[in-house]
């Protein structure tokens, strides 16, 4: 099965009657702007990590189309479980740079109030969020609303038992859940052929999920497919999986050295399929982008970059105190005692 593609790497648009999409200048501008902003944010965060301001950063470079195209196909009220690399999606939901950085700064274990954005905190234990999403969708099912739930994960995570339990459970229970896999070809240094023999969308169909594969660097295709699949789930069609074939253009994280395991030519070939450049080609060809738009997006990017640097510098000091009272709803005597002792120690150091 070939990935659904509406926009070729050189920017030619070919409609597909199976996946209708009204491609307006406005739609493209919106996607373009969001992808450019996401990349700028990503670059800025990378720079901050290199300057020692963040402990770690996991880039989404290359995966902007997969994230932006998919999350904009959901309603704002649809609850989303991200993995840990979904900055581009998160920005679309309105999360702030501060919220996205604080965890990687090392100041907190998570960054935002999920209820506010209907965007769950990041889950770093691979695949653990898939059963959560399944359970959440069981709740939606019981509530009888027309919300759906979406969960993001990677090709590597799909090898975990919990991922496959979730595929199976969601299918058996018929919950309104969209599994969205960004197959970026790598799990740290491990290529997908070590993870699996058959492609994930094939496996998903085996579980009885409706499954599709899409060119993950083609924001129009991602959007068209996700929109159609999401509406089908919303209409009671049962859970589905979308595999977006994309590429992690950066290292796994700022601790990684991808030159140890992948070739420059592989990276080059994917640079040529850059999701942002591809959409831009279409927009240029169609005359949907001009200097004014570019300048406006550049200004927005600069502002976002500046905000990102500023909030990062402004993070205050943190201490243990909050932890003691966040373990249980009611602090235990042991924790109260530890807290007292901790505070006494802090005071004694100050002396």
């Amino acid at each position, binding site marked *: 099965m070939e990935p659904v593609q509406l926009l070729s790497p050189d920017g030619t648009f070919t409609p597909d009657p199976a996946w209708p999409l009204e491609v307006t200048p406005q739609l493209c501008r919106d996607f373009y702007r969001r992808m450019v902003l996401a990349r700028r944010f990503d670059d800025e965060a990378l720079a901050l990590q290199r300057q020692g301001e963040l402990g770690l950063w996991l880039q989404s470079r290359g995966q902007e189309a997969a994230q932006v195209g998919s999350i904009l196909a959901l309603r704002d009220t649809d609850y989303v479980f991200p993995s840990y690399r979904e900055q581009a999606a998160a920005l679309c939901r309105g999360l702030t740079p501060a919220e996205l950085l604080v965890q990687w700064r090392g100041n907190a*274990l998570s960054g935002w109030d999920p*209820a506010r954005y209907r965007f769950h905190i990041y889950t770093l234990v691979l695949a653990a969020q898939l059963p959560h999403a399944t359970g959440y969708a069981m*709740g939606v099912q019981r509530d009888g609303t027309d919300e759906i739930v979406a969960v993001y994960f990677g090709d590597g995570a799909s090898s975990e038992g919990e991922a496959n339990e979730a595929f199976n459970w969601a299918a058996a229970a018929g919950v309104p859940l969209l599994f969205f896999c960004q197959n970026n070809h790598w799990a740290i240094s491990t290529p997908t052929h070590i993870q699996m023999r058959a492609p994930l969308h094939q496996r998903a169909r085996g579980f009885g999920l409706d499954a599709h594969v899409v060119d993950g660097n083609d924001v129009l295709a991602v959007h068209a497919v996700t929109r159609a699949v999401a509406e089908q789930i919303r209409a009671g069609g049962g859970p589905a999986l979308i595999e977006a074939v994309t590429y992690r253009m950066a290292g796994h994280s700022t601790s990684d050295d991808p030159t140890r395991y992948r070739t420059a030519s592989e990276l080059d070939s994917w640079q040529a399929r850059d999701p942002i450049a591809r959409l831009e080609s279409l927009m240029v060809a169609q005359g949907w982008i001009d200097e004014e738009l570019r300048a406006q997006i550049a200004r927005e990017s600069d502002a976002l970059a500046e905000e990102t640097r500023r909030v990062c510098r402004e993070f205050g000091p943190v201490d243990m105190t909050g932890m003691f009272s966040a373990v249980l709803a009611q602090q235990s005597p042991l924790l109260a005692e530890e807290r007292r002792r901790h505070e006494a120690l802090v005071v004694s150091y100050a002396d």
Partner: protein
Amino acid sequence: MPELTLSKAINTGLRRALEDDPKVIVMGQDVGGLGGVFRVTDGLQKDFGSDRVIDTPLAEASIVGTAIGLALRGYRPICEIQFDGFVYPAFSQIVSQLAKLRARTNGLLSVPVVIRIPVGGGIGAVEHHSESNEAYFAHTAGLRVVCCSDPHDAHWMLRMAARGADPVIFYEPKRRYWSKADVAESADDARVLPLDRARVVRPGRDLTLLTYGGMVATCLEAAEIAAEEGRDLEVVDLRSLSPLDLDTITASVDRTGRCVVVHEAPTFAGLGAEVGSAVTERCFYRLEAPVLRVGGYNTPYPPAKVEDQYLPDADRVLDAVDRAFAW
């Protein structure tokens, strides 16, 4: 309430929880039509429907994982793990997700999931069906770990667990499922204690037996025998294994000066080790002998025909009591 078996007392507790709060969900393997392998959920699916009493696929990680998701959606799942030895596939969900979500979000999220686990041996079962694994969860910050020992407590502890804001590992000593006792009618009854409180089940002056679950009856039996020999043993049912109610515990040991901890689990790095260390820290000058531990031997749980030798019985408890007095 009339006399109920432990199993029925929990069943009734679940029924009340389902009635009291439409968000309560009971879920697990075979909890529906069958009513669970110990019949603890008997009749619930018939009365509350299969949306609220859910027969799940055979996947423990996802039983806990989907329960977390349901809790995030505002539900209050009470999961059953069929036997103690089958909770391990869910270990990652329990210790990395369930236990931590509150702390990870600085208190923003609560995931009030109750995990019921029939625990321990003494029923002649095959391997993996008689494990006592409370130490793993007690060592995990962010969980409440409780263990009931009689029908009354089982009923009320369950109802409290089902209303609290924290995740609870709720142990049910399976060898006591069929023992009967009176269950208080109302939450106002003086016998209804908070979930995190230990309870002196037999007052005594000479030595404190600290225990829980299936071993409470064993310790009471030992205390009866000791009484005949003129030794007055106090028996404390810990009830809450994490957090521990050290006020009640140390009050007892400060009075008696001697202490033996009894549980079914292997002693090495077991809960008794914590109790021993904590009691020693707090009652150092009062102790006439070290806190001694009686537990399952430090082997895997043995075959059924051997479990009577493996599990602590009144004799093994009294042997430790003798040693404590002889110190």
